């Protein structure tokens, strides 16, 4: 049994001190009396028998009761045993549909990346096979070089889209191949990963019960059951969704919830993790094969509240895409109707709409709407404290944008000669055609002019980049992340007759830890959990990467510490998080035990058994 908060165990010393104080504080006080004969008679009739046993009973009850409370405060839990080595089979979707574009690459390339990620997460001793189709035939490749990423990448690079369709009628053969590829077990865990770019239904297939099935679907989304919006909070994420089915999530108090349409689900960040996942399982579908999964990473930056106002539905299309991009950089985005007040930190206005600025607004991004308005930033209808100080550029900017300004609807326009203060944002051209922005000294408001000749969607990444800048500039103190647990994974055994030293460095913590390991039977074994507790991530990154060096000293007495043979070790994924319910159950059990002991002690005292 280990403890989540072992520091509380120090209180056990206080319990011991309490026991000593109790024992010695209840000693007899000397007094001189006369009539000793009379006192002896009183003692014969009133002295409680077995006083020592009664005192010991009282002391034992008290110490046990306080000990239970201290253990409950330390939040005990039982370590999960390490999982057995696993044999996995990865089914890679190479169907024709994988040639379609997904983000900035083909879906097949994205799937290959995911295969690499899956293989990269394997532990020492795990084995992996890859199944895919080529020319309509199932190809089994393996075992994969799980410990050599370069070799794995080269092997994946040879896989191309298969233009020979594999219809559903032949699909069971694939499953048969999958099962044939998986070993018989013999104490090893068996898993099948299906990496696909479509929302394929696998629920009618005869999957064996002792094989884990994992579906990793890219770009597949069931329109009837979809996540619509995500809000990240300090201690939880709120997910908006539509559809009808069940929710299975890590961090949700109940294992399974029925969600109405539409609904909101609060996803509590699991203890010790920065990630939480939630999946929607439509009714009638196989929970194992659900592909409506969303994994959220807890933001380590302050959340940015963004309000988006769009003048027309067409603008909403643009802003919706924009919101998704902003959502990727940890912002809460909500749409407001023209005319509504904006009470968020950032306001994005598109088109010709009335918006009232609230006091919280520290930045405004105003976007042009139609090509006819190219180069025109109309902020005259933005109301609030800054009304009258807003300005629109009256320039022809960017080599690509040579169209003259055709309309100017702001009286106090800035002359071209005063453009020196505008931020050069031309480096963002590859992301879009954002042209220029300016920060005012009064409210740190950023005005942006954009051109939309490449299509409205093309502007979105540039604006998202701007939003990230705003996030970084308006960032206050980073939020406190949850406790971080880093494990070195499988024990490392190094043959050595001399004591060895290990050093674990966590750059983002600005900490390192060095310890000495004595050889046992000619081997030094390194396996430990380091840096438990709460840490504030450095501002320049949120990586969990750690380095782990093992070295020995030629002469411990004369040579100072220093790495001799660094042994690189990547950071393993966060360890399995004990169920929160278990924490609560164990702590509650101890508290109930303490309460029961207290009640029993009072009962014994009441009936005169103890004093």
């Amino acid at each position: 049994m280990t403890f989540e908060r072992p520091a509380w165990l120090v209180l056990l010393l206080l319990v011991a001190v309490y026991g000593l104080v109790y024992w010695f504080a209840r000693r007899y006080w000397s007094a001189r009396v006369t009539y000793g004969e009379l006192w002896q008679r009183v003692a014969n009739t009133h002295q409680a028998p077995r006083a020592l046993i009664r005192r010991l009973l009282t002391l034992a009850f008290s110490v046990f009761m306080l000990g239970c409370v201290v253990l409950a405060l330390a939040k005990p839990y039982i370590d999960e045993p390490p999982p057995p080595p696993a044999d996995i089979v990865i089914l890679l979707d190479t169907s024709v549909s994988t040639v379609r574009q997904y983000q900035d690459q083909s879906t097949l390339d994205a799937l290959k990346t995911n295969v690499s990620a899956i293989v990269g997460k394997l532990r020492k001793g795990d084995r992996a096979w890859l199944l895919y189709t080529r020319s309509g035939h199932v190809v089994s490749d393996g075992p994969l070089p799980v410990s050599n990423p370069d070799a794995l990448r080269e092997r994946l690079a040879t896989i191309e889209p298969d233009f020979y369709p594999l219809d559903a009628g032949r699909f069971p053969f694939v499953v048969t191949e999958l099962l044939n590829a998986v070993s018989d077990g013999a104490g090893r865990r068996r898993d099948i990963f299906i990496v696909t770019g479509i929302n394929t239904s696998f629920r009618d297939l005869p999957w064996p019960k002792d094989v884990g099935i994992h579906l990793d679907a890219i770009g597949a989304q069931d329109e009837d059951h979809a996540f619509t919006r995500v809000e990240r909070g300090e201690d939880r994420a709120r997910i908006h969704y539509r559809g009808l089915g069940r929710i299975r999530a890590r961090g949700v108090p109940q294992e399974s919830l029925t969600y109405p349409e539409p609904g909101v689900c609060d996803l509590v960040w699991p203890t010790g993790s920065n990630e939480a996942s939630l999946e929607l399982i439509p009714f009638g579908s196989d929970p194992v094969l659900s592909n409506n999964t969303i994994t959220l990473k807890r933001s380590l930056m302050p959340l940015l509240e963004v309000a988006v106002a769009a003048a027309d539905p067409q603008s909403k299309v643009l802003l919706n895409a924009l919101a998704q991009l902003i959502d990727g950089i940890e912002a809460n985005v909500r749409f407001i109707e023209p005319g509504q007040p904006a009470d968020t930190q950032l306001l994005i206005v598109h088109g010709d709409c009335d918006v009232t600025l609230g006091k919280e607004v520290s930045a405004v991004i105003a976007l042009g709407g139609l090509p006819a308005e190219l180069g025109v930033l109309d902020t005259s209808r933005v109301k609030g404290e800054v009304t009258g100080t807003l300005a629109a550029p009256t320039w022809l900017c960017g080599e690509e944008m040579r169209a003259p300004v055709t309309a100017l609807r702001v009286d106090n326009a800035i002359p071209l000669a005063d453009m020196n203060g505008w931020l050069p944002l031309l480096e963002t051209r590859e992301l879009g055609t954002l042209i220029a922005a300016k920060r005012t000294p009064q409210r740190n408001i950023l005005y942006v002019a954009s051109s939309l000749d490449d299509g409205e969607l093309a502007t979105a990444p540039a604006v998202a980049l701007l939003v990230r800048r705003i996030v970084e500039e308006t960032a206050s103190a980073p939020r406190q992340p949850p406790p971080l647990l880093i494990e070195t994974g499988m024990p490392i055994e190094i043959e050595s007759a001399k004591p060895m030293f290990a050093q674990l460095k966590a750059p983002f913590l600005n900490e390192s830890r060095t310890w000495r390991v004595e050889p046992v039977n000619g081997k030094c074994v390194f396996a430990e959990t380091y840096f438990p507790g709460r840490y504030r991530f450095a501002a320049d990154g949120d990586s969990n990467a750690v380095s782990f060096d093992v070295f020995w000293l030629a002469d411990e007495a004369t040579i100072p510490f220093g790495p001799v043979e660094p042994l690189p070790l990547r950071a393993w994924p966060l360890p399995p998080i004990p169920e929160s319910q278990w924490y609560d159950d164990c702590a509650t059990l101890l508290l109930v035990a303490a309460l029961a002991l207290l009640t029993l002690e009072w009962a014994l005292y009441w009936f005169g058994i103890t004093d």
Partner: protein
Amino acid sequence: MAEATPTVDLLAPEFRERLEHLRLVAQQVRSSGRGGTHLTRLRGSGLEFAGHRPYSPGDDLRYLDWAALGRLDQLVLKQFDVQGDVTVVLAPDCSTSMDYGEPSKLDLVRQLTGALGYLALHSADQVALAPLTGGAFERFSGPAHVHDWLDRASRLRRNKQGLQMRGWIEQARSIHGAALFIVMTDFLQRADVLNLFGEIRRRNAPVIAIYPIAPQEFNPPLSGRSALTAIESGERLKLDITPETLDAYKRELNLYRAAIQASCRRIGAGLLEIGTHERMEDVVLMLVAHRIIRVGRS
């Protein structure tokens, strides 16, 4: 251990002056006929009738006034004053248990010994200091030795040897003539003390017991877990002091006192309980009220 109090503090001059107007009164004291001015109450004819006092259980029925019984239908005793030569034997208990209380029982006994001896010497009687804890009786006679008496009384100290009854009784038998025995003890060696009273009564001499009790003995200032040490025996006892145990102790103490009273009454010894917190003037008034001291010169 309480230090001896200087003479001047033992009895204040004003108090000594008041004592000179008082005299000891005793019942059934046999005069030696040596011409002392002490008024004794003797049984027999030719003596001056001094008055009546109510009968109390244990009194000698031979002194009942049968005529008064016929007239008043009340039991009263006749008392007579006789001038005679009487030895007043003052027997203080200086054992360890007397050094208890605030003020201590020994302080009260020391002052009372001084006062009663002073009174007797002024009446030209002989006074014998006979500590129960042993030692030879010291005799004083006449007003000229008043100062020596007070000085000796002030030097009464605690004696760890306990009561020495055998030697004390032997010396008491050597006193010839009329004698009045005043024993000041806390009765913690009750059997020995009552045996002593019996010996005194067998020679037909009056005995008066003065029983000092400290307030701390009535209401012991104890609570909680206590390791009690009995002063008189040195025995140790561990006891959890609660209101119940205190009540039980008080009940035992009352029974103890009642037993002493009954024993004294049976023997024919007078008994007077005095709290150590009482002022000496009040103690004298109590002695007057119990007709141990009488106001007026002979």
